């Protein structure tokens, strides 16, 4: 994948959280914010959320669904699903290394 989430600065964490949130199913902005607050324990601001969301959409990692009741749900694309898979694998490797070293020291 040529998309490097970590290059998105302030939006990289939000982008990752959005991908995880949408892995559960399509959501509109408010549902994403609530879901992220629940599973990650962080509140993402609306400006940051949409900054990340627009970037994800431009890269084809998420796609918009038709608007219902003024709110527009988004869903993961297959490319987005692949990227999330890669990101999680990378993070798992780092977590494993960290834990090993902590346990050994």
């Amino acid at each position, binding site marked *: 994948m040529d998309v490097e989430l970590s290059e998105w600065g302030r939006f990289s964490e939000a982008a990752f959280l959005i991908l995880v949130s949408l892995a559960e199913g399509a959501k509109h902005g*408010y549902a994403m914010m609530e879901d992220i607050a629940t599973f990650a324990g962080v509140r993402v601001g609306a400006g940051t959320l949409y*900054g990340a969301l627009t970037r994800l959409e431009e890269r084809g990692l998420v796609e918009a669904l038709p*608007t219902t009741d003024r709110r527009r749900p988004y869903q993961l694309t297959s490319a987005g699903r692949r990227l999330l898979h890669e990101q999680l694998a990378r993070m798992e490797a780092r977590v494993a290394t960290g834990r090993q070293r902590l346990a050994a020291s």
Partner: protein
Amino acid sequence: MNLRTARLLLRLYPRAWRERYGEEFAALLAQQPLTWEGVLDIGRGAFDARQRATRRNGQLAKPHVATNGKRKEQTMGRRQRTFNCSFCGKNQHQTQRLIAGPNGVYICDECILLCYDILTQEVHPGQGAETGREARHARVPWWRRLGVRWQFDRGAPQPL
């Protein structure tokens, strides 16, 4: 916050962004309390959107609306793209010609002529008629050397 406040905050974002995301974003804001952190966050988001719009030169991705097997729904309608001169910011409707360069760079006819003026002007302050130009052009005032065409500048060379 109420929808009216949400729409006010939305105006911080550039027009193209508002056309694409405005409705859903305003709806999202209206569902939240108005806080200073929230306003700051929106301000930062708007700043970021403006920076990206400048780089992207007025274009915005068309919504990738999923079809789910049905006919593609045109929810936003077709938006006309605007391109902006990288020098003065005017778009193709505000200038006569807009010429495209590489990597999303554009230049308009007015700025090309202004550059031509700058390149052909001889900036020799203190010299009299020896430069070959009319006396009043011999000493170039500091504000003309900035390369900006001022409305009050009667002595500036006329465009071709």
